[in-house]
Protein backbone atom coordinates (compact mmCIF):
# COMPACT_ATOMS: atom_id res chain seq x y z
CA UNK A 1 0.00 0.00 0.00
CA UNK A 2 2.76 2.42 0.91
CA UNK A 3 4.58 1.36 -2.21
CA UNK A 4 1.52 2.25 -4.21
CA UNK A 5 1.36 5.61 -2.48
CA UNK A 6 5.00 6.43 -3.16
CA UNK A 7 4.47 5.38 -6.77
CA UNK A 8 1.44 7.66 -7.01
CA UNK A 9 3.11 10.64 -5.39
CA UNK A 10 6.24 10.34 -7.51
CA UNK A 11 5.92 13.22 -9.94
CA UNK A 12 8.16 11.48 -12.50
CA UNK A 13 6.32 8.14 -12.65
CA UNK A 14 5.57 6.60 -16.00
CA UNK A 15 1.91 7.17 -16.73
CA UNK A 16 0.45 3.67 -16.75
CA UNK A 17 -2.27 4.54 -19.22
CA UNK A 18 0.36 5.52 -21.79
CA UNK A 19 2.15 2.21 -21.40
CA UNK A 20 -1.16 0.38 -21.73
CA UNK A 21 -1.99 2.40 -24.81
CA UNK A 22 1.37 1.63 -26.34
CA UNK A 23 1.06 -2.12 -25.84
CA UNK A 24 -2.54 -2.16 -27.08
CA UNK A 25 -1.33 -0.36 -30.19
CA UNK A 26 1.42 -2.91 -30.77
CA UNK A 27 -1.02 -5.79 -30.31
CA UNK A 28 -3.51 -4.14 -32.64
CA UNK A 29 -0.93 -3.55 -35.33
CA UNK A 30 0.85 -6.91 -35.21
CA UNK A 31 -1.50 -9.62 -33.96
CA UNK A 32 -3.86 -9.58 -37.01
CA UNK A 33 -0.85 -10.28 -39.20
CA UNK A 34 0.23 -13.14 -36.96
CA UNK A 35 -3.27 -14.58 -37.19
CA UNK A 36 -3.08 -14.32 -40.99
CA UNK A 37 0.21 -16.25 -40.87
CA UNK A 38 -1.38 -18.83 -38.59
CA UNK A 39 -4.20 -19.40 -41.07
CA UNK A 40 -1.67 -20.26 -43.76
CA UNK A 41 -1.36 -23.50 -41.78
CA UNK A 42 -5.09 -24.16 -41.51
CA UNK A 43 -6.09 -27.67 -42.47
CA UNK A 44 -9.48 -26.58 -43.81
CA UNK A 45 -10.38 -24.23 -46.60
CA UNK A 46 -11.50 -21.43 -44.32
CA UNK A 47 -9.40 -18.38 -43.55
CA UNK A 48 -11.59 -17.34 -40.66
CA UNK A 49 -12.27 -20.53 -38.70
CA UNK A 50 -9.35 -22.54 -37.34
CA UNK A 51 -9.62 -26.21 -38.27
CA UNK A 52 -6.29 -27.61 -37.16
CA UNK A 53 -2.68 -27.47 -38.27
CA UNK A 54 -1.48 -28.80 -41.60
CA UNK A 55 0.93 -28.02 -44.39
CA UNK A 56 -1.81 -28.65 -46.92
CA UNK A 57 -1.70 -25.16 -48.43
CA UNK A 58 2.09 -25.08 -48.60
CA UNK A 59 2.72 -28.24 -50.61
CA UNK A 60 0.48 -31.13 -49.64
CA UNK A 61 -2.51 -30.14 -51.78
CA UNK A 62 -1.68 -31.38 -55.31
CA UNK A 63 -3.46 -28.52 -57.13
CA UNK A 64 -4.02 -25.49 -55.02
CA UNK A 65 -1.08 -25.40 -52.63
CA UNK A 66 1.56 -22.71 -52.91
CA UNK A 67 4.03 -25.20 -54.32
CA UNK A 68 1.72 -26.73 -56.94
CA UNK A 69 -0.54 -23.89 -58.09
CA UNK A 70 1.28 -22.46 -61.14
CA UNK A 71 -0.25 -18.99 -60.76
CA UNK A 72 0.95 -18.65 -57.15
CA UNK A 73 4.39 -19.93 -58.07
CA UNK A 74 4.58 -17.52 -60.97
CA UNK A 75 3.64 -14.58 -58.74
CA UNK A 76 6.43 -15.57 -56.38
CA UNK A 77 9.01 -15.88 -59.15
CA UNK A 78 7.92 -12.59 -60.73
CA UNK A 79 8.27 -10.75 -57.42
CA UNK A 80 11.72 -12.18 -56.78
CA UNK A 81 12.90 -11.53 -60.34
CA UNK A 82 11.69 -7.94 -60.17
CA UNK A 83 13.18 -7.27 -56.73
CA UNK A 84 16.51 -8.82 -57.69
CA UNK A 85 17.02 -6.83 -60.87
CA UNK A 86 15.64 -3.62 -59.37
CA UNK A 87 18.25 -4.01 -56.64
CA UNK A 88 21.05 -4.57 -59.15
CA UNK A 89 20.15 -1.52 -61.28
CA UNK A 90 18.89 0.99 -58.72
CA UNK A 91 21.71 0.64 -56.20
CA UNK A 92 24.67 1.60 -58.45
CA UNK A 93 22.60 4.39 -60.02
CA UNK A 94 21.68 5.72 -56.59
CA UNK A 95 25.17 5.42 -55.11
CA UNK A 96 26.68 7.32 -58.04
CA UNK A 97 23.95 9.93 -57.82
CA UNK A 98 24.50 10.35 -54.08
CA UNK A 99 28.27 10.76 -54.54
CA UNK A 100 27.75 13.23 -57.37
CA UNK A 101 25.14 15.32 -55.58
CA UNK A 102 27.17 15.40 -52.36
CA UNK A 103 30.10 17.21 -53.97
CA UNK A 104 28.70 18.84 -57.09
CA UNK A 105 27.77 22.47 -56.45
CA UNK A 106 25.61 24.82 -58.47
CA UNK A 107 22.11 25.40 -59.67
CA UNK A 108 21.84 22.24 -61.77
CA UNK A 109 22.95 20.20 -58.78
CA UNK A 110 20.28 21.78 -56.57
CA UNK A 111 17.62 21.16 -59.21
CA UNK A 112 18.72 17.53 -59.55
CA UNK A 113 18.58 17.15 -55.80
CA UNK A 114 15.01 18.42 -55.72
CA UNK A 115 14.10 16.18 -58.65
CA UNK A 116 15.44 13.19 -56.72
CA UNK A 117 13.30 14.02 -53.68
CA UNK A 118 9.94 14.49 -55.44
CA UNK A 119 9.27 10.77 -56.08
CA UNK A 120 9.40 10.21 -52.31
CA UNK A 121 6.58 12.68 -51.65
CA UNK A 122 4.42 11.74 -54.61
CA UNK A 123 1.41 9.46 -54.08
CA UNK A 124 2.00 6.19 -55.83
CA UNK A 125 -1.14 6.51 -57.92
CA UNK A 126 0.22 9.67 -59.56
CA UNK A 127 3.53 8.01 -60.32
CA UNK A 128 1.77 4.87 -61.51
CA UNK A 129 -0.43 6.84 -63.91
CA UNK A 130 2.55 8.77 -65.24
CA UNK A 131 4.55 5.65 -65.95
CA UNK A 132 1.59 3.72 -67.35
CA UNK A 133 0.70 6.49 -69.80
CA UNK A 134 4.28 7.00 -70.94
CA UNK A 135 4.88 3.30 -71.61
CA UNK A 136 1.49 3.07 -73.28
CA UNK A 137 1.97 6.05 -75.59
CA UNK A 138 5.61 7.09 -75.92
CA UNK A 139 8.08 4.38 -74.95
CA UNK A 140 6.09 1.80 -76.88
CA UNK A 141 9.26 -0.21 -77.57
CA UNK A 142 9.18 -1.24 -73.91
CA UNK A 143 6.18 -3.54 -73.44
CA UNK A 144 3.96 -3.31 -70.38
CA UNK A 145 4.62 -6.26 -68.12
CA UNK A 146 7.91 -7.19 -66.53
CA UNK A 147 10.20 -4.83 -68.55
CA UNK A 148 8.08 -1.74 -67.80
CA UNK A 149 7.62 -2.85 -64.18
CA UNK A 150 11.38 -3.16 -63.76
CA UNK A 151 11.99 0.36 -65.08
CA UNK A 152 9.21 1.71 -62.84
CA UNK A 153 10.59 0.02 -59.74
CA UNK A 154 14.08 1.36 -60.39
CA UNK A 155 12.64 4.86 -60.74
CA UNK A 156 11.08 4.94 -57.28
CA UNK A 157 13.95 3.03 -55.65
CA UNK A 158 16.80 5.34 -56.69
CA UNK A 159 15.73 8.04 -54.21
CA UNK A 160 15.86 5.64 -51.25
CA UNK A 161 19.42 4.69 -52.14
CA UNK A 162 20.46 8.33 -52.43
CA UNK A 163 18.99 9.18 -49.02
CA UNK A 164 20.64 6.21 -47.31
CA UNK A 165 24.06 6.70 -48.90
CA UNK A 166 24.06 10.46 -48.49
CA UNK A 167 23.36 10.15 -44.79
CA UNK A 168 26.53 8.05 -44.47
CA UNK A 169 28.54 10.38 -46.70
CA UNK A 170 27.73 13.27 -44.37
CA UNK A 171 29.00 11.40 -41.31
CA UNK A 172 32.17 10.29 -43.10
CA UNK A 173 32.96 13.85 -44.14
CA UNK A 174 35.46 14.95 -46.77
CA UNK A 175 38.63 14.60 -44.65
CA UNK A 176 39.65 11.05 -45.49
CA UNK A 177 39.07 11.60 -49.16
CA UNK A 178 41.14 14.81 -49.05
CA UNK A 179 43.89 12.96 -47.27
CA UNK A 180 43.94 10.30 -49.97
CA UNK A 181 44.20 12.95 -52.65
CA UNK A 182 46.95 14.78 -50.76
CA UNK A 183 48.86 11.52 -50.72
CA UNK A 184 48.63 11.43 -54.49
CA UNK A 185 45.49 9.43 -55.24
CA UNK A 186 43.45 10.55 -58.21
CA UNK A 187 39.85 11.54 -57.36
CA UNK A 188 38.56 8.31 -58.84
CA UNK A 189 41.13 6.27 -56.93
CA UNK A 190 40.17 8.13 -53.76
CA UNK A 191 36.53 7.17 -54.24
CA UNK A 192 37.41 3.59 -55.06
CA UNK A 193 39.94 2.94 -52.33
CA UNK A 194 38.61 5.17 -49.53
CA UNK A 195 34.98 6.15 -49.94
CA UNK A 196 33.46 2.98 -51.36
CA UNK A 197 34.86 0.69 -48.64
CA UNK A 198 33.63 3.12 -45.99
CA UNK A 199 30.24 3.21 -47.69
CA UNK A 200 30.11 -0.58 -47.90
CA UNK A 201 27.55 -1.17 -45.14
CA UNK A 202 25.35 1.67 -46.40
CA UNK A 203 25.49 0.23 -49.92
CA UNK A 204 24.60 -3.20 -48.60
CA UNK A 205 21.73 -1.69 -46.60
CA UNK A 206 20.57 0.06 -49.78
CA UNK A 207 20.55 -3.21 -51.70
CA UNK A 208 18.40 -4.79 -49.01
CA UNK A 209 16.02 -1.85 -48.66
CA UNK A 210 15.53 -1.68 -52.44
CA UNK A 211 14.84 -5.40 -52.50
CA UNK A 212 12.26 -5.06 -49.72
CA UNK A 213 10.48 -2.02 -51.19
CA UNK A 214 10.35 -3.66 -54.59
CA UNK A 215 8.83 -6.89 -53.19
CA UNK A 216 6.34 -4.79 -51.24
CA UNK A 217 5.27 -2.50 -54.04
CA UNK A 218 1.73 -2.84 -55.28
CA UNK A 219 0.56 0.29 -57.12
CA UNK A 220 3.42 0.75 -59.59
CA UNK A 221 3.43 -2.97 -60.38
CA UNK A 222 -0.34 -3.07 -60.83
CA UNK A 223 -0.36 -0.08 -63.19
CA UNK A 224 2.47 -1.46 -65.32
CA UNK A 225 1.55 -5.12 -65.34
CA UNK A 226 0.17 -6.38 -68.63
CA UNK A 227 -1.70 -9.57 -67.76
CA UNK A 228 -1.70 -12.61 -65.46
CA UNK A 229 1.78 -13.60 -66.61
CA UNK A 230 3.36 -10.58 -64.92
CA UNK A 231 1.44 -10.76 -61.65
CA UNK A 232 3.51 -10.22 -58.52
CA UNK A 233 2.65 -11.39 -55.00
CA UNK A 234 0.84 -8.15 -54.00
CA UNK A 235 -1.11 -8.11 -57.28
CA UNK A 236 -2.10 -11.73 -56.73
CA UNK A 237 -3.31 -10.92 -53.21
CA UNK A 238 -5.24 -7.92 -54.48
CA UNK A 239 -6.96 -9.80 -57.27
CA UNK A 240 -7.93 -12.94 -55.34
CA UNK A 241 -8.47 -11.89 -51.73
CA UNK A 242 -12.13 -11.05 -52.23
CA UNK A 243 -12.91 -13.60 -54.95
CA UNK A 244 -11.81 -17.17 -54.40
CA UNK A 245 -9.15 -17.25 -51.74
CA UNK A 246 -7.79 -20.29 -49.96
CA UNK A 247 -5.23 -20.35 -47.15
CA UNK A 248 -2.65 -20.79 -49.92
CA UNK A 249 -2.98 -17.03 -50.38
CA UNK A 250 -2.02 -16.54 -46.74
CA UNK A 251 0.95 -18.81 -47.37
CA UNK A 252 1.93 -16.64 -50.32
CA UNK A 253 1.66 -13.51 -48.19
CA UNK A 254 3.74 -15.20 -45.49
CA UNK A 255 6.51 -15.92 -47.97
CA UNK A 256 6.54 -12.28 -48.98
CA UNK A 257 6.64 -11.23 -45.32
CA UNK A 258 9.64 -13.49 -44.68
CA UNK A 259 11.58 -12.08 -47.64
CA UNK A 260 10.90 -8.47 -46.63
CA UNK A 261 11.74 -8.97 -42.97
CA UNK A 262 14.89 -10.88 -43.85
CA UNK A 263 16.06 -8.10 -46.18
CA UNK A 264 15.26 -5.33 -43.70
CA UNK A 265 16.82 -7.30 -40.84
CA UNK A 266 20.05 -7.65 -42.80
CA UNK A 267 19.98 -3.92 -43.59
CA UNK A 268 19.60 -3.00 -39.91
CA UNK A 269 22.40 -5.40 -39.05
CA UNK A 270 24.71 -3.84 -41.66
CA UNK A 271 24.05 -0.35 -40.35
CA UNK A 272 24.59 -1.52 -36.78
CA UNK A 273 28.00 -2.97 -37.65
CA UNK A 274 28.83 0.31 -39.29
CA UNK A 275 27.83 2.34 -36.28
CA UNK A 276 29.68 0.28 -33.73
CA UNK A 277 31.10 2.66 -31.17
CA UNK A 278 28.88 5.54 -32.19
CA UNK A 279 25.96 6.88 -30.24
CA UNK A 280 22.40 5.70 -30.77
CA UNK A 281 21.13 2.52 -32.38
CA UNK A 282 20.57 1.43 -35.93
CA UNK A 283 16.84 1.15 -35.28
CA UNK A 284 16.75 4.79 -34.32
CA UNK A 285 18.62 5.57 -37.49
CA UNK A 286 15.81 4.01 -39.44
CA UNK A 287 13.21 5.86 -37.44
CA UNK A 288 14.65 9.26 -38.08
CA UNK A 289 15.41 8.49 -41.70
CA UNK A 290 13.21 10.66 -43.87
CA UNK A 291 11.58 7.94 -45.87
Amino acid at each position, binding site marked *: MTRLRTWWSNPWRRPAFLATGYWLYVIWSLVPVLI*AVQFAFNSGRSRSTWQGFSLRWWFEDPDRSLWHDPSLREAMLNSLWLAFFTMLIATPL*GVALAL*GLARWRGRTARASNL*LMLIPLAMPEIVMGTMLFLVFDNLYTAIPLGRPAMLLGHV*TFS*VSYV*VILVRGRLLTIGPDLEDAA*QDLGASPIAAIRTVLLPLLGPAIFASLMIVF*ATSIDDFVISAFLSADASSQTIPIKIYSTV*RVAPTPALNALATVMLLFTLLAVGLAVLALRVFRRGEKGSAVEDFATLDL
Partner: protein
Amino acid sequence: MGQRVVDVQRRRLKPRDRTRALWPGLALPGVAWLLAFFVVPFYGVLAVAFGGLDPIFGNAVPAWNPLEWDTTVFGDVLDRVVNAELREVYLRTFVYVGVALFLCFLIGYPVAYYVSRFGGRRRGLLLGLILAPFWINYLMRMLAWINLLQEDGYVNDILTGLHVTSSPVNWLEGRAVTVVFGLVYGYIPFFVLPLFAALDRIDRSVIEASRDLGMGPLRTFLRVTLPLSKQGMLAAAVITALPMMGDYYTADLLSGSPRTSMIGNQIEFFLFEGSQKNAGASLVVILSILLMAAMAYYLVQTDRATRELHRS
Protein backbone atom coordinates in the same frame (compact mmCIF):
# COMPACT_ATOMS: atom_id res chain seq x y z
CA MET B 1 59.02 25.78 -45.63
CA GLY B 2 56.82 28.38 -47.35
CA GLN B 3 57.72 26.86 -50.70
CA ARG B 4 56.54 23.46 -49.53
CA VAL B 5 53.18 24.79 -48.43
CA VAL B 6 52.69 26.35 -51.86
CA ASP B 7 53.70 23.06 -53.47
CA VAL B 8 51.22 21.10 -51.45
CA GLN B 9 48.49 23.59 -52.24
CA ARG B 10 49.27 23.45 -55.91
CA ARG B 11 49.16 19.68 -55.86
CA ARG B 12 45.86 19.87 -54.05
CA LEU B 13 44.41 22.26 -56.57
CA LYS B 14 45.23 20.29 -59.67
CA PRO B 15 43.17 17.18 -58.98
CA ARG B 16 40.37 19.42 -57.77
CA ASP B 17 40.08 20.86 -61.29
CA ARG B 18 39.70 17.43 -62.72
CA THR B 19 37.13 16.68 -60.06
CA ARG B 20 34.90 19.37 -61.39
CA ALA B 21 33.79 17.12 -64.24
CA LEU B 22 33.81 14.03 -62.06
CA TRP B 23 30.88 14.86 -59.76
CA PRO B 24 28.37 15.83 -62.45
CA GLY B 25 29.59 12.81 -64.36
CA LEU B 26 28.77 10.54 -61.45
CA ALA B 27 25.35 12.11 -61.05
CA LEU B 28 24.63 11.99 -64.78
CA PRO B 29 23.20 8.45 -65.14
CA GLY B 30 20.85 8.92 -62.20
CA VAL B 31 19.70 12.33 -63.37
CA ALA B 32 19.22 11.04 -66.92
CA TRP B 33 17.17 8.15 -65.56
CA LEU B 34 14.94 10.50 -63.59
CA LEU B 35 14.52 12.74 -66.62
CA ALA B 36 13.50 9.84 -68.86
CA PHE B 37 11.28 8.00 -66.38
CA PHE B 38 10.03 10.75 -64.16
CA VAL B 39 10.06 14.16 -65.85
CA VAL B 40 9.00 12.98 -69.30
CA PRO B 41 6.17 10.81 -67.84
CA PHE B 42 5.03 13.77 -65.76
CA TYR B 43 4.75 15.81 -68.92
CA GLY B 44 3.10 12.81 -70.55
CA VAL B 45 0.19 13.02 -68.09
CA LEU B 46 -0.38 16.61 -69.18
CA ALA B 47 -0.11 15.61 -72.85
CA VAL B 48 -2.75 12.91 -72.36
CA ALA B 49 -5.02 15.09 -70.22
CA PHE B 50 -4.98 17.80 -72.86
CA GLY B 51 -4.96 15.37 -75.77
CA GLY B 52 -7.63 13.45 -77.61
CA LEU B 53 -8.95 9.91 -77.85
CA ASP B 54 -8.76 7.47 -80.71
CA PRO B 55 -12.49 7.17 -81.67
CA ILE B 56 -12.35 3.47 -82.53
CA PHE B 57 -10.21 1.88 -79.81
CA GLY B 58 -10.51 4.59 -77.18
CA ASN B 59 -6.72 4.82 -76.87
CA ALA B 60 -5.22 8.09 -75.74
CA VAL B 61 -3.81 10.37 -78.42
CA PRO B 62 -1.46 12.58 -76.45
CA ALA B 63 -0.82 16.14 -77.59
CA TRP B 64 2.94 16.52 -77.08
CA ASN B 65 2.99 20.05 -78.43
CA PRO B 66 1.52 22.44 -75.86
CA LEU B 67 0.24 24.63 -78.70
CA GLU B 68 -2.15 21.83 -79.68
CA TRP B 69 -3.54 21.36 -76.21
CA ASP B 70 -7.27 20.88 -76.10
CA THR B 71 -8.82 21.69 -72.74
CA THR B 72 -12.37 20.44 -73.39
CA VAL B 73 -12.03 17.13 -71.56
CA PHE B 74 -10.02 18.65 -68.72
CA GLY B 75 -12.58 21.45 -68.38
CA ASP B 76 -15.40 18.94 -68.44
CA VAL B 77 -13.79 16.80 -65.72
CA LEU B 78 -13.05 19.87 -63.62
CA ASP B 79 -16.66 20.94 -64.01
CA ARG B 80 -17.88 17.53 -62.87
CA VAL B 81 -15.56 17.74 -59.87
CA VAL B 82 -16.91 21.14 -58.89
CA ASN B 83 -20.57 20.76 -59.81
CA ALA B 84 -21.64 17.24 -60.58
CA GLU B 85 -21.22 13.61 -59.63
CA LEU B 86 -17.46 13.69 -59.06
CA ARG B 87 -17.90 16.28 -56.35
CA GLU B 88 -19.34 13.62 -54.10
CA VAL B 89 -16.26 11.44 -54.66
CA TYR B 90 -13.97 14.34 -53.78
CA LEU B 91 -15.92 15.32 -50.68
CA ARG B 92 -16.06 11.71 -49.57
CA THR B 93 -12.29 11.37 -49.99
CA PHE B 94 -11.69 14.55 -47.96
CA VAL B 95 -14.02 13.36 -45.19
CA TYR B 96 -12.46 9.88 -45.06
CA VAL B 97 -8.93 11.26 -45.03
CA GLY B 98 -9.85 13.92 -42.47
CA VAL B 99 -11.48 11.46 -40.08
CA ALA B 100 -8.64 8.98 -40.60
CA LEU B 101 -6.04 11.67 -39.81
CA PHE B 102 -7.90 12.63 -36.66
CA LEU B 103 -7.98 9.00 -35.53
CA CYS B 104 -4.30 8.63 -36.41
CA PHE B 105 -3.64 11.59 -34.14
CA LEU B 106 -5.71 10.19 -31.27
CA ILE B 107 -4.08 6.77 -31.47
CA GLY B 108 -0.63 7.72 -32.69
CA TYR B 109 0.23 10.66 -30.45
CA PRO B 110 0.22 8.74 -27.14
CA VAL B 111 2.25 5.97 -28.75
CA ALA B 112 4.91 8.29 -30.15
CA TYR B 113 4.94 10.27 -26.90
CA TYR B 114 5.36 7.17 -24.77
CA VAL B 115 8.34 5.88 -26.76
CA SER B 116 10.09 9.24 -26.91
CA ARG B 117 9.61 10.18 -23.22
CA PHE B 118 9.43 6.88 -21.36
CA GLY B 119 11.29 4.49 -23.65
CA GLY B 120 14.20 4.22 -21.23
CA ARG B 121 16.55 1.34 -21.82
CA ARG B 122 14.02 -0.62 -23.87
CA ARG B 123 13.70 2.21 -26.36
CA GLY B 124 15.22 0.26 -29.24
CA LEU B 125 12.73 -2.57 -28.75
CA LEU B 126 9.73 -0.26 -28.31
CA LEU B 127 10.72 1.61 -31.44
CA GLY B 128 11.34 -1.58 -33.39
CA LEU B 129 7.83 -2.79 -32.60
CA ILE B 130 6.23 0.34 -34.00
CA LEU B 131 8.57 0.22 -37.01
CA ALA B 132 7.62 -3.36 -37.86
CA PRO B 133 4.31 -2.59 -39.62
CA PHE B 134 6.29 -0.45 -42.05
CA TRP B 135 7.85 -3.55 -43.44
CA ILE B 136 4.77 -5.71 -43.44
CA ASN B 137 3.19 -5.42 -46.82
CA TYR B 138 0.14 -3.18 -46.94
CA LEU B 139 -1.88 -5.78 -48.81
CA MET B 140 -0.97 -8.45 -46.33
CA ARG B 141 -2.21 -6.23 -43.51
CA MET B 142 -5.46 -5.70 -45.41
CA LEU B 143 -5.68 -9.45 -46.07
CA ALA B 144 -5.31 -10.02 -42.35
CA TRP B 145 -8.27 -7.78 -41.60
CA ILE B 146 -10.37 -9.19 -44.42
CA ASN B 147 -9.98 -12.58 -42.75
CA LEU B 148 -10.88 -11.16 -39.34
CA LEU B 149 -13.87 -9.21 -40.62
CA GLN B 150 -15.50 -12.10 -42.51
CA GLU B 151 -19.02 -12.87 -41.42
CA ASP B 152 -17.75 -15.93 -39.55
CA GLY B 153 -14.49 -14.18 -38.60
CA TYR B 154 -13.02 -13.45 -35.19
CA VAL B 155 -14.35 -9.88 -34.97
CA ASN B 156 -17.94 -10.99 -35.34
CA ASP B 157 -17.30 -13.91 -32.97
CA ILE B 158 -16.16 -11.46 -30.31
CA LEU B 159 -18.93 -8.96 -30.94
CA THR B 160 -21.71 -11.54 -30.82
CA GLY B 161 -20.02 -13.28 -27.89
CA LEU B 162 -20.11 -10.04 -25.93
CA HIS B 163 -23.68 -9.41 -27.10
CA VAL B 164 -22.68 -6.14 -28.73
CA THR B 165 -24.51 -7.24 -31.83
CA SER B 166 -27.12 -9.98 -31.97
CA SER B 167 -26.16 -11.29 -35.41
CA PRO B 168 -22.88 -11.14 -37.37
CA VAL B 169 -22.29 -7.85 -39.19
CA ASN B 170 -21.10 -8.01 -42.77
CA TRP B 171 -18.32 -5.47 -42.39
CA LEU B 172 -17.01 -5.84 -45.91
CA GLU B 173 -20.06 -4.73 -47.87
CA GLY B 174 -19.75 -1.05 -48.65
CA ARG B 175 -19.31 0.36 -45.15
CA ALA B 176 -17.59 3.71 -44.74
CA VAL B 177 -16.56 2.75 -41.20
CA THR B 178 -14.55 -0.19 -42.48
CA VAL B 179 -12.81 1.88 -45.16
CA VAL B 180 -11.81 4.61 -42.71
CA PHE B 181 -10.64 1.95 -40.28
CA GLY B 182 -8.56 0.41 -43.06
CA LEU B 183 -7.00 3.76 -43.90
CA VAL B 184 -6.08 4.35 -40.25
CA TYR B 185 -4.68 0.86 -39.86
CA GLY B 186 -2.74 1.06 -43.10
CA TYR B 187 -1.18 4.48 -42.77
CA ILE B 188 -0.77 5.08 -39.05
CA PRO B 189 2.92 4.01 -39.07
CA PHE B 190 3.56 6.94 -41.40
CA PHE B 191 1.97 9.19 -38.78
CA VAL B 192 3.71 7.82 -35.70
CA LEU B 193 7.27 7.98 -37.00
CA PRO B 194 7.62 11.65 -37.96
CA LEU B 195 5.78 12.51 -34.76
CA PHE B 196 8.22 10.42 -32.76
CA ALA B 197 11.15 12.14 -34.47
CA ALA B 198 9.68 15.55 -33.59
CA LEU B 199 8.89 14.66 -29.97
CA ASP B 200 12.35 13.18 -29.59
CA ARG B 201 13.94 16.46 -30.63
CA ILE B 202 12.21 18.39 -27.85
CA ASP B 203 14.77 19.49 -25.29
CA ARG B 204 14.20 17.58 -22.06
CA SER B 205 15.34 20.54 -19.98
CA VAL B 206 12.36 22.59 -21.17
CA ILE B 207 9.99 19.96 -19.83
CA GLU B 208 11.94 19.69 -16.59
CA ALA B 209 11.92 23.45 -16.22
CA SER B 210 8.15 23.46 -16.54
CA ARG B 211 7.84 20.76 -13.91
CA ASP B 212 10.30 22.52 -11.61
CA LEU B 213 8.22 25.67 -11.87
CA GLY B 214 5.33 23.72 -10.41
CA MET B 215 3.24 22.66 -13.36
CA GLY B 216 1.74 19.19 -13.22
CA PRO B 217 2.33 16.58 -15.89
CA LEU B 218 -0.91 17.37 -17.70
CA ARG B 219 -0.34 21.12 -17.81
CA THR B 220 3.27 20.61 -18.82
CA PHE B 221 2.07 18.45 -21.67
CA LEU B 222 -0.61 20.89 -22.79
CA ARG B 223 1.47 24.05 -22.50
CA VAL B 224 4.97 22.83 -23.38
CA THR B 225 5.12 19.51 -25.20
CA LEU B 226 2.03 19.85 -27.35
CA PRO B 227 2.86 23.32 -28.73
CA LEU B 228 6.46 22.28 -29.34
CA SER B 229 5.32 19.27 -31.36
CA LYS B 230 3.03 21.28 -33.62
CA GLN B 231 5.52 21.18 -36.47
CA GLY B 232 5.89 17.43 -36.11
CA MET B 233 2.14 16.94 -36.17
CA LEU B 234 1.90 18.97 -39.34
CA ALA B 235 4.67 16.90 -40.94
CA ALA B 236 2.98 13.68 -39.84
CA ALA B 237 -0.36 14.84 -41.21
CA VAL B 238 1.12 15.74 -44.60
CA ILE B 239 3.16 12.54 -44.88
CA THR B 240 0.08 10.48 -44.04
CA ALA B 241 -2.44 12.43 -46.08
CA LEU B 242 -0.49 12.32 -49.36
CA PRO B 243 -0.68 8.55 -49.87
CA MET B 244 -4.19 8.38 -48.38
CA MET B 245 -5.49 10.83 -50.95
CA GLY B 246 -4.28 8.60 -53.77
CA ASP B 247 -5.36 5.33 -52.20
CA TYR B 248 -7.74 3.12 -54.15
CA TYR B 249 -7.00 -0.40 -52.98
CA THR B 250 -8.18 0.05 -49.38
CA ALA B 251 -11.68 1.05 -50.48
CA ASP B 252 -11.60 -1.63 -53.14
CA LEU B 253 -10.57 -4.45 -50.83
CA LEU B 254 -12.57 -3.56 -47.74
CA SER B 255 -15.74 -2.47 -49.48
CA GLY B 256 -15.67 -2.66 -53.27
CA SER B 257 -18.87 -0.68 -53.47
CA PRO B 258 -19.29 2.57 -55.44
CA ARG B 259 -20.84 4.01 -52.28
CA THR B 260 -17.38 4.24 -50.74
CA SER B 261 -15.29 5.00 -53.81
CA MET B 262 -12.53 7.56 -53.45
CA ILE B 263 -10.60 9.75 -55.91
CA GLY B 264 -8.14 6.93 -56.51
CA ASN B 265 -10.93 4.54 -57.45
CA GLN B 266 -12.26 7.05 -59.96
CA ILE B 267 -8.80 7.47 -61.52
CA GLU B 268 -8.33 3.73 -61.75
CA PHE B 269 -11.77 3.35 -63.32
CA PHE B 270 -11.15 5.99 -66.00
CA LEU B 271 -7.72 4.58 -66.86
CA PHE B 272 -8.42 0.87 -66.95
CA GLU B 273 -12.10 0.07 -67.00
CA GLY B 274 -13.67 2.83 -69.03
CA SER B 275 -11.67 3.88 -72.05
CA GLN B 276 -11.40 7.49 -70.93
CA LYS B 277 -7.67 7.78 -70.40
CA ASN B 278 -7.67 11.55 -70.92
CA ALA B 279 -10.33 11.96 -68.24
CA GLY B 280 -8.23 9.80 -65.90
CA ALA B 281 -5.14 11.85 -66.64
CA SER B 282 -7.16 15.03 -65.98
CA LEU B 283 -8.15 13.70 -62.55
CA VAL B 284 -4.50 12.93 -61.82
CA VAL B 285 -3.56 16.49 -62.79
CA ILE B 286 -6.27 17.91 -60.50
CA LEU B 287 -5.17 15.66 -57.63
CA SER B 288 -1.52 16.64 -58.15
CA ILE B 289 -2.39 20.33 -58.05
CA LEU B 290 -4.30 19.85 -54.79
CA LEU B 291 -1.45 17.91 -53.22
CA MET B 292 1.15 20.38 -54.42
CA ALA B 293 -0.84 23.15 -52.77
CA ALA B 294 -0.84 21.15 -49.53
CA MET B 295 2.91 20.56 -49.85
CA ALA B 296 3.54 24.24 -50.53
CA TYR B 297 1.53 25.21 -47.45
CA TYR B 298 3.54 22.75 -45.40
CA LEU B 299 6.87 24.02 -46.72
CA VAL B 300 5.91 27.65 -46.05
CA GLN B 301 4.89 26.71 -42.50
CA THR B 302 8.12 24.82 -41.80
CA ASP B 303 10.13 27.66 -43.28
CA ARG B 304 8.37 30.18 -41.06
CA ALA B 305 8.84 27.97 -38.01
CA THR B 306 12.57 27.56 -38.68
CA ARG B 307 13.01 31.29 -39.15
CA GLU B 308 11.18 32.03 -35.90
CA LEU B 309 13.39 29.50 -34.16
CA HIS B 310 16.51 31.24 -35.43
CA ARG B 311 15.23 34.66 -34.44
CA SER B 312 14.40 33.76 -30.86
